[in-house]
């Protein structure tokens, strides 16, 4: 019988194999995680813990295993970002406006995971409506990064918007977690917490049942401890869904089989435009290190140009808020969630939305409403869409020359809580390296690659052509092996 901390120390692949060999059970594993979740409440990673449901699901999983039915995620306890609707379980998008909302339906991605045998530990905290890069906009309070610089007792942010997902994976209180990525919300927090975060091609994961932020950009993906874990979990999340018109009907390859460790002859692009002004030397150094690792593994490093990169972030902050301003119109206090009554209809709308939405969400609704308004549409929204097309063309041309692209994931390591929350522009700049691939709908992943000067994790990003997640995982796997990132956060919350 394994000790609890040994169990929670297992990667997804290791836990899967231990379950397969009968070395543990899903119930045992789940109990260990339930205890770990309870002990890690200072991280504020969960909005809702569902221990009873978890045990029930674990028992059912063990029963299935006894009966000889074993799914790809059989018995593995996960955390689910609170952006996913989960049937009869509070689903809030970390917003006050979804107070008490228990959807009568389940998102397709979580349905796929449960069908693969996974167990739900609860719902994870996030930036409100996935708007944020530090997980400080949640109605349920900020999430703490398990990592702290040596000798620093301040709380550091886990990144965002999938901050609860990143924090819980890094703290080993879930085997893995779902995240969603609109402009970097999986990859940037993965980088900030020393874990793997992968976003598949837009259209791979169904958006059905995922609370919408920016529909043309939102994409779910796995947040895990290793590249292999991400490959396994992504395989269980994706797939064609007739309920989502933007879902893509394409065969799903066995992502895990991409991890050959062999990238000899692959061409890896290094985009000149990602070498931005004021980038900290430690980021530059890590990027060069990544280049060297891949070259040493037999890849050919090719300098490339993605000329419209500098327009990606401003264009993103037009397109995403525009879509959000419309997507969030349904939160009007009429049918579900929060309602603050006023003297008439308009006042009820105003009070409900003023109280129900936090400052960042309100800011983006206002930006989005503005850029779509008569007289401004052409100058902003239409122009941003043109930029988006150009960004896509940049990548298309680049992928004519190279098989994958290597960049830093974020322009800095995790920062202290409150450090940037007063400056939206500084906060938005966190996504500068992740947004272009989102705008182009391309797959991308962050792999932990090193530590900053003050001992905080840093990730490198691998981008691949549309629907070529296999190459992304193949390169990511080699990068992971070469980096041999083994640092773990001190579990200060246990003290």
């Amino acid at each position, binding site marked *: 019988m394994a000790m609890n901390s040994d169990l929670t120390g297992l990667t997804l692949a290791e836990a899967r194999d231990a379950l397969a060999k009968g070395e543990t059970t899903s119930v045992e594993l789940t109990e260990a995680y339930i205890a770990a979740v309870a002990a890690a409440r200072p991280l504020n990673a969960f909005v809702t813990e569902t221990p009873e449901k978890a045990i029930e699901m674990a028992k059912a999983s063990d029963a299935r295993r006894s009966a000889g039915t074993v799914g790809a995620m059989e018995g593995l306890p996960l955390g689910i970002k609170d952006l996913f609707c989960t049937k009869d379980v509070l689903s809030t998008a970390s917003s006050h406006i979804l107070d008490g909302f228990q*959807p009568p339906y389940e998102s397709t991605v979580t349905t796929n995971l449960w069908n693969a045998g996974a167990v739900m530990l609860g719902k994870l905290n996030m930036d409100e409506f996935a708007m944020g890069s530090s997980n400080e906009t949640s109605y349920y309070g900020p999430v703490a990064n398990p990592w702290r610089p040596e000798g620093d007792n301040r709380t550091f942010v886990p990144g965002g918007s999938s901050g609860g997902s990143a924090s819980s994976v890094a703290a080993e209180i879930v085997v893995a977690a779902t995240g969603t990525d609109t402009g970097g919300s999986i990859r940037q927090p993965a980088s900030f917490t020393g874990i793997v975060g992968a976003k598949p091609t837009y259209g791979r994961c169904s958006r*059905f049942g995922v609370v919408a932020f920016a529909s043309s950009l939102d994409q779910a993906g796995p947040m895990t401890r290793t590249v292999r874990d991400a490959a396994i979990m992504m395989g269980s999340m994706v797939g064609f869904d007739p309920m989502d018109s933007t879902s893509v009907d394409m065969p799903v390859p066995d992502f895990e089989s991409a991890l050959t460790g062999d990238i000899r002859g692959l061409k890896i692009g290094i985009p000149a435009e990602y070498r931005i002004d004021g980038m900290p030397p430690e980021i530059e150094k890590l990027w060069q290190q990544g280049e060297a690792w891949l070259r040493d593994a037999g890849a050919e490093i090719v300098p490339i140009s993605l000329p419209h990169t500098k327009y990606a972030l401003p264009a993103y902050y037009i397109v995403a808020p525009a879509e959000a*301003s419309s997507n969030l*119109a349904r939160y*009007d206090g*009429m*049918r579900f969630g929060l309602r603050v009554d006023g003297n008439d209809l308009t006042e009820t*709308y105003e009070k409900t939305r003023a109280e129900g939405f936090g400052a960042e969400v309100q800011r983006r609704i206002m930006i989005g409403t503005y850029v779509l308004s008569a007289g401004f*549409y052409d100058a902003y929204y239409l122009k941003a869409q043109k930029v988006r097309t150009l960004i896509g063309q940049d990548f298309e041309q680049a992928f004519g020359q190279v098989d994958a692209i290597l960049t830093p994931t974020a322009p800095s390591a995790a920062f202290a809580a409150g450090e940037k929350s007063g400056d939206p522009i500084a906060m938005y700049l966190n996504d500068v390296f992740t947004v272009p691939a989102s705008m182009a709908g391309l797959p991308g992943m962050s792999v932990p690659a090193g530590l900053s000067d003050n001992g905080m994790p840093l990730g490198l990003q691998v981008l691949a052509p549309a629907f070529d997640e296999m190459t992304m995982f193949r390169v990511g796997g080699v990068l992971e092996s070469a980096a041999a990132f083994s640092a773990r956060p001190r579990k200060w919350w246990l003290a």
Partner: protein
Amino acid sequence: MRDIPTNPDNLIAGETGDWEIVMGLEIHAQVSSNAKLFSGASTEFGADPNSQVSFVDAGLPGMLPTINERCVEQAVRTGMGLNAEINLYSVFDRKNYFYPDLPQGYQISQFKQPIVGRGTVTIELSDGSTKEIGVERLHLEQDAGKSLHDQHPSQTYVDLNRCGVALMEIVSDPDMRSAEEASAYVEKVQRIVRYVGSCDGVMAEGSLRADVNVSVRRPGGELGTRCEIKNVNSMRFIRQAIEHEARRQIEILEDGGKIDQETRLYDPNKGVTRSMRSKEEAHDYRYFPDPDLLPLEMEQEWVDAIRASLPELPDAKKARFMADFGLSEYDARTLVSDRDSADYYEAVASGRDPKLSANWVTTDLFGYLNRTGINIAESPIKAAQLGQLIDRIIDKTISGRIAKEVFEVMCETHQDPDAIIAEKGLKQVTDEGAITAVVDQVIAENPDKVADVQGGKEKLLGWFTGQVMKLSGGKANPQAVNKILREKILGD
């Protein structure tokens, strides 16, 4: 805008001279489909409130629209009925505004790239003339729910059954110049959608309703400022609303005032239009392409297959009835007014005299149906029965006059004409021997009148015919009677 010559008959006399009304219409036609435009919920009329609402319709978080192919097909069929361009590539946009009966906070519609482009509708006016009305576009969009203000003293209830039902918005050019033209246009569009089966066109149930844009101007002069009258739901109200609105605008202009561009509602009880919202209060709908839906792309073969399956349309049918059957414009127009009437007529006329068939259908049958309020599709007198009646006239079994009697019995008993003729012994006598006997009797009883005829008063022959017919109980063949009378009296 097309240059349409001013028709003096359409002018309205004001205090300061003549005025011309200029109108364009937006018709909202509910698509006949079992499910809504973007959800699987039922579209059946008259269900309990909120019993036909899917999570998508209710705008729940994370719900996504998926297009109903049947609705797309219906829009294409309608476009073909309107002689319009079918756009193989079209885009769904979001029209954003807040209202409790709009759960998503936006209506999915088509703004810049509609599924159907320019077309033409030929309207028919009471003086027998026709006029072309341009169609600017047809697009697909979702209907909103219904706010119920009369269920509670201080609160409004919302019924979402209608929310998400597919509508076709058909936008005309401002080509109409009179209330008659406007209602003729609505009637024609109603006929077309019913022919192609894309909408049941029942205005009373709201499945077809019109927004009328009305402005007035000096004949042929600069266009005036228009007002939009929303959701008028009967032909009569359309005419009344236009007439009222035109008079209202003329009065304002003649008093030296100016028209405010605004949206107005027609109140059929008071017979007036009243302001709903002004241009200043108009929404900025912030249209943008719906990112939940890919552009709608149709394959040419799919569209071609729809065209091949299209029924003959009213204009083509009317032309054919006139050309092939020699019908008058009036009869042809009456017969093609709906598909069932046209089909009924064709069944009757098949292999028979087309004009005689048309007379019987438009006069006798329609008269009976109007009297009894029965729909032609449910007519208890079947086309085959009416055809048999006409056959008996043609083969001289009965005369036209007896046929009217037989028809009356058919209306009562719904029996076959042959059965009625046999039962009542109405068979026409063509046996010359039998007729000769009656003729001889009449001649013998009226020697003075015979002499008059022989003296040149040939008109009196008609009196003899009448006497013979009377004595034969109407069954004698009038032509045979005439012939024998002439032989006997005049020696012809």
